[in-house]
């Protein structure tokens, strides 16, 4: 080992050291056994970790937190189980899309009957609508989005079950306040009233990043497409810290419970700042805020 760490008075590597390094690599290249040993040492532990905390749990995991009732019971009552033939697939896909559409419409109808403002996320058209009584009052164009692969991996039956009822807001984190409240104490007399600032608040410019935590493990993250100002980095760090805490789990949890069923289903949407702000400000507090999703077409 000394030969690898020797330095001359100026702190430079000596020729001897360079020779030793070259010797080491030429020696290593000439020994397949050593290379194999190195690979085994380097890969065994990560491979075991991947197998135990990623692959095996993923194989056993149900992509949706809810599961549709099995048809097996119903099938067992049939004298002969009917199976779909390939030529019927286009019709069946069409039926699945119609089921999806019907469920989406039924959800909208249910929320239209209520007085609250609600959100309609339409992934097919890449829009997030703010709706009141069935009327989309603002259509927010989604510039881009990332949806959890669980939506793709899920069976139609399970996905339908998950989307069957509107999602209810459970919590939220945001870079902007829900209500920009200003507290004013009533002046005692006209002189004190005259001293009160008369200039209204300027339109808000704060960066809009927020996360809505719904029931059924749905997490919707919305962020503005506009770049943030350097002075807002502190605000963003604080938000990011709170956001990370949604998904953070201890090392022990990651190993002992690699994929708990309550893992969030994350959908990230990017849109312009005005739309994002309008969405966050318009939705009611917590359990009164509802969301419905129209997922991608079944044939996509």
């Amino acid at each position, binding site marked *: 080992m000394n030969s690898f760490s020797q330095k001359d008075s100026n702190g430079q590597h000596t020729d001897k050291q360079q020779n030793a390094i070259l010797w080491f690599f030429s020696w290593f290249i000439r020994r397949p056994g050593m290379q194999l040993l190195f690979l085994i040492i380097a890969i065994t532990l990560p491979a075991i970790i991947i197998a135990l*905390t990623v692959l095996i749990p993923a194989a056993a995991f149900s992509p949706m937190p809810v599961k549709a009732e099995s048809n097996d019971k119903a*099938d067992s009552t049939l004298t002969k189980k009917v199976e779909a033939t390939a030529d019927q697939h286009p019709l069946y896909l069409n039926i699945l899309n119609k089921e999806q559409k019907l469920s989406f419409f039924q959800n909208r109808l249910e929320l239209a009957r209520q007085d609250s403002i609600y959100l309609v996320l339409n992934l097919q058209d890449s829009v997030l609508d703010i709706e009141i009584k069935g009327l989309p009052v603002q259509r927010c164009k989604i510039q881009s989005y990332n949806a*959890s692969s669980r939506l793709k991996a899920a069976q139609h039956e399970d996905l339908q079950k998950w989307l069957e009822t509107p999602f209810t807001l459970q919590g939220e984190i945001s870079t902007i306040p829900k209500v920009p409240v200003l507290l004013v104490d009533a002046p005692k007399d006209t002189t004190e009233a005259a001293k009160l600032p008369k200039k209204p608040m300027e339109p808000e410019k704060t960066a809009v990043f927020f996360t809505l935590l719904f029931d059924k493990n749905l997490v919707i993250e919305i962020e503005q497409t506009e770049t943030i100002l350097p002075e807002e980095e502190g605000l963003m760090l604080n938000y990011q810290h709170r956001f990370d805490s949604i998904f953070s789990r201890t090392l022990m949890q990651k190993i002992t419970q690699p994929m708990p069923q309550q893992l969030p289903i994350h959908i990230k949407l990017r849109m312009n700042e005005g739309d994002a702000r309008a969405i966050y400000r318009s939705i009611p507090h917590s359990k009164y805020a509802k969301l419905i999703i129209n997922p991608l077409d079944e044939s996509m």
Partner: protein
Amino acid sequence: MNQLRNTSGQSESVNSPIKKPKPNAKRVRNARFIILIFGLLTSIMLSAFVIKNQLILQEKALLIFHSNDHAKSFDRIASRSPKKYDVSLSKDIDNTDKALKAFLPKQTYIVINTTGNNFKLFDANGKALREGLVSTGSFTILKAGDNRQWMFKTPRGQLKILRKTKDPVWKRPDWAFIEEGLKVPSANHPSRFEYGTLGDYSMSLGDGYMIHGTLYKRFLGLPVTHGCIRMGDEDLEDVFNTLKIGSKVYIY
């Protein structure tokens, strides 16, 4: 044994039949040790990477093991009469769509955005007729000394035009006096009635909230009101003439 040193400092036997230089045992031992250390370090780093990105890897792994092959759904559909089911689904969709459309306004309506402080006026077919700026609630909480407080916010949801008034007179509520440091007069005291403050027209939405004009046109587009919706003169006139009593007002 007689030994010679070669140029790289390695020792070799003089009597060796092959003259190739051989690494000494210490060097080989060191090299093996280095491989072990590097191997372990690489292993730890890779493991840390896997743990850190566990969620991302799991999401990707899900697509390996699970796919929406529709088999279960197809079998379910096949077990009933698919064509009839298809027709009944279309019928259900149409009915639900009709029920949804029944909620939509049948006459002209207005949509007010309290975040952007703007409005859009639509005809019965949903065609935009006019848009412009408004002022809505300031979200100010006024605290009076006698444990009373008011929050100046514009109500949200679906409201209706309940009454339309030309040359409206504003009956000032208590807070209008309190916020100016004035003594609150009796309910019908003449000082409560103000002419011209609300502009040429007003449309009542109930609970004291109105769409009306303003003297403070420079504040249009900003949240400055006590909950009412203020408009510029031309916008107000057009909105007043277009909306009828019962017209829907959507505020979000």
